[in-house]
């Protein structure tokens, strides 16, 4: 596989930086979130956003679609939402003086699908989304319809008001590249929001890159060099999520799958490209660990009783597993790096 040149990387990096800058103009005080969302997009992954209402999750998705000139559809998941409502349904229509079923694409047939409060939909509807997320196609009445490329699902869920909701199954959770926590803004950010926003008025954003450029960048991400030591690091981290493989995994009931390792690798490459580097690095992997792994591990009862969160456990795992698997003689000791 040929790797991109430094010039290409620099050009791509510049464009991505413009994109993130543009998005930061829409969403104040969420630079890290924007960064990870763009990373997820470049890594061709779906993203689950979890946060309280009104934090700008929908605005982010809208801004993203405008900046990238992507088609966006929003689906508000409710308990009565049917699978056909999102995938599409065949409609009986008269075509050429004949009555036949014509497939009407659902809101999934878009580039950017915002699935609001995904945990409020029934498992049946959730599973319909699952195929689309994984296969990037839907099958209705035996007919398979390919979804547009690129296709991203940005799902949101509310951490409160869990009554009457259907937690996402692990299989579907595993298909999200990232799970990002959207935190509330501080006072300074709120002031800025108040100063620059009006209720009901959508912020404007100019397109930063078109579809072709985005595809080019996404293709370049795949060619970013992944050193073997970084691959080894990814493997050891994912392996460390399983019970008995590390001290941090003491409270984990089920660990991450190989899909998590692939996700980590893709995310690390995306971050490397965003930084203009030809190679993914340990630091990129560390940055991507929490969003990639926190929704893929299941804590056991004791850990939950102790009040541990998935995020904490992943943090302990990163601290425990060294970037380099090297036996250090006892005549040396680790010193804090400057």
């Amino acid at each position, binding site marked *: 596989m040929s790797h991109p040149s430094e010039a290409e990387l620099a050009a791509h990096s510049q464009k991505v930086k413009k994109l993130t800058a543009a998005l930061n103009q829409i969403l104040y005080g969420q630079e890290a979130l924007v960064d990870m969302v763009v990373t997820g997009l470049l890594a061709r992954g779906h993203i689950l956003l979890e946060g309280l209402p009104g934090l700008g999750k929908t605005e982010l998705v809208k801004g993203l679609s405008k900046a990238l000139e992507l088609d966006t559809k929003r689906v508000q998941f409710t308990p009565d939402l049917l699978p056909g409502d999102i995938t599409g349904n065949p409609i009986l229509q008269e075509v050429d003086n004949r009555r036949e079923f014509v497939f009407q694409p659902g809101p999934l047939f878009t580039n950017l699908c915002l699935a609001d409060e995904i945990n409020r939909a029934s498992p049946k509807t959730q599973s319909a989304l699952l195929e689309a997320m994984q296969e990037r196609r839907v099958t209705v009445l035996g007919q398979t319809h390919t979804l547009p490329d690129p296709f991203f699902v940005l799902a949101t869920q509310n951490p409160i008001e869990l009554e009457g909701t259907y937690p996402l199954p692990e299989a579907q959770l595993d298909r999200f590249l990232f799970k990002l926590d959207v935190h509330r803004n501080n006072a300074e950010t709120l002031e800025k929001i108040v100063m620059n926003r009006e209720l009901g008025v959508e912020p404007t954003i100019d397109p930063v890159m078109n579809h072709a450029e985005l595809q080019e960048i996404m293709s370049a991400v795949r060619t970013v060099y992944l050193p073997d030591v970084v691959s080894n690091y990814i493997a050891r981290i994912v392996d460390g999520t399983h019970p008995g493989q590390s001290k941090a995994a003491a409270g984990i009931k089920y660990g991450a799958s190989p899909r998590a390792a692939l996700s980590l690798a893709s995310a690390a490459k995306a971050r490397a490209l965003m930084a203009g*580097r030809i190679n993914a690095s340990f630091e990129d992997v560390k940055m991507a660990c929490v969003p990639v792994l926190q929704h893929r591990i299941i804590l056991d009862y004791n850990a939950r009783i102790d009040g541990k969160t998935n995020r904490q456990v992943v943090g302990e795992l990163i601290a425990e597993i060294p970037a*380099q698997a090297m036996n250090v003689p*006892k*005549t*040396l000791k680790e010193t804090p790096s400057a």
Partner: protein
Amino acid sequence: MIRSTRRKVNLAWWLEMLAPLSIGFGILAASVLLYLRTQIWFSDQLMTALIAAIGLALVLPIVALILGRRRFISHREAAVRLESVMHLNNALSVAEDELAPWPQPPMKPMVRDGFGWNWRRLVIPPMVAVALVAAAFLLPVRPVEAKIEVPNEPIAWQEMEEWLEELKEEEISPEDKIEEIREQIENLRTQPEDEWFSHSSLEATDSLRESLQRALEQLEQDMTTAERTMTAMEKYSSAMSEAAQDQMIQEFQDAVQGMEFNKLPPTPQVMDALKQMNLDPNQMKQMNAQQMQQLREQMKKNAQALQQMMGQGQGQQGEWGNNLDDEEALMRMIHGDNWREGMGMSQQPGQGGVERGRGDAPMFHNEDESQLGSKDLEAVTNEDLSRAAPGDVLGVGEAENNIDEAPVQVREAGAVGSAGQGGETVWEENLLPSERAVLERYFK
């Protein structure tokens, strides 16, 4: 920087392998040194031991290197370590793979590999080794004394065999008698070796030795007596009184009889000659002077040999056979060292002779004690008093004290209320019956 990191880590591995080896070397060296110091010859071999220790100490680093090599890190691993600690985003690995240029080294020349030396781990093992070796040098150790060759058999057996051999060489006693004693020694020797020094075996050895020694001493005394009496009768019988002559003859006969019945008698030839010897002055004139001379010399020689065997002095030969002109010299010859001026022919105190002399009995008022060979003290115990022989522990008894139960009364001065008891103890316990009778008769 990568190379220095690699050297540092590999050096740390080498020291890690060397640490237990140095402790093991210290323990081994201390143990060997302690052992060697217990040997007398060690002081001569000190340099050799030191060279061997130095050689072994030089081998240890090589062994540590061989053991640690498989853990050494490569250039790539050192690069990864650096880029990980310095947050270089794996730039060194990419440069190693020739996909990107080498990054610029940091401004500060100090290598930041994230490793520091664990000084406790580095210093303690060699210090322990040095301390062990120093302790082995400084601990007071007493060298094991050279082993003394312990005879395989009791010394008394060899001593007795030497006596018997001497008897045989000097032809003092007949061989059959000597062999009898040898057989007894051989019987002791045929016991199992672990019983040679048992109590019973040693008692038997002591008993045999004592009886043999007594026999030899008695033989020596009898031969000396025989020789003396023969010389006295041959040369000075005319100057002796008849009683003295009889005494001499009796002593000669007693000596001959003693020799005959000794465990180790003289040879049959000597014995026959002695029996045929008649010291009667009238009979002596008819005897062969040369034979007598030879017999006397034989006796003298045998007595001297026996005295040397027993470790006694040169004996009391002196020049008593050469310069005797008068009865005093004869008296000296007869009485030997016990002679005192005024002593008569008889050796009984205070009897006979014109000059009665002091009448000292033998062994009384003498400057030197008689050599009776009884200096050995032997403790005798007898646990079974019912079998106690006279002279052994006679017994232990309990008896009431002699308490005077006579009432004590005070009367006029000089008067005695009652006669106390105890006065009769004087003649009751200390006087012979005849003496007691005399005193009773006298005081009644």
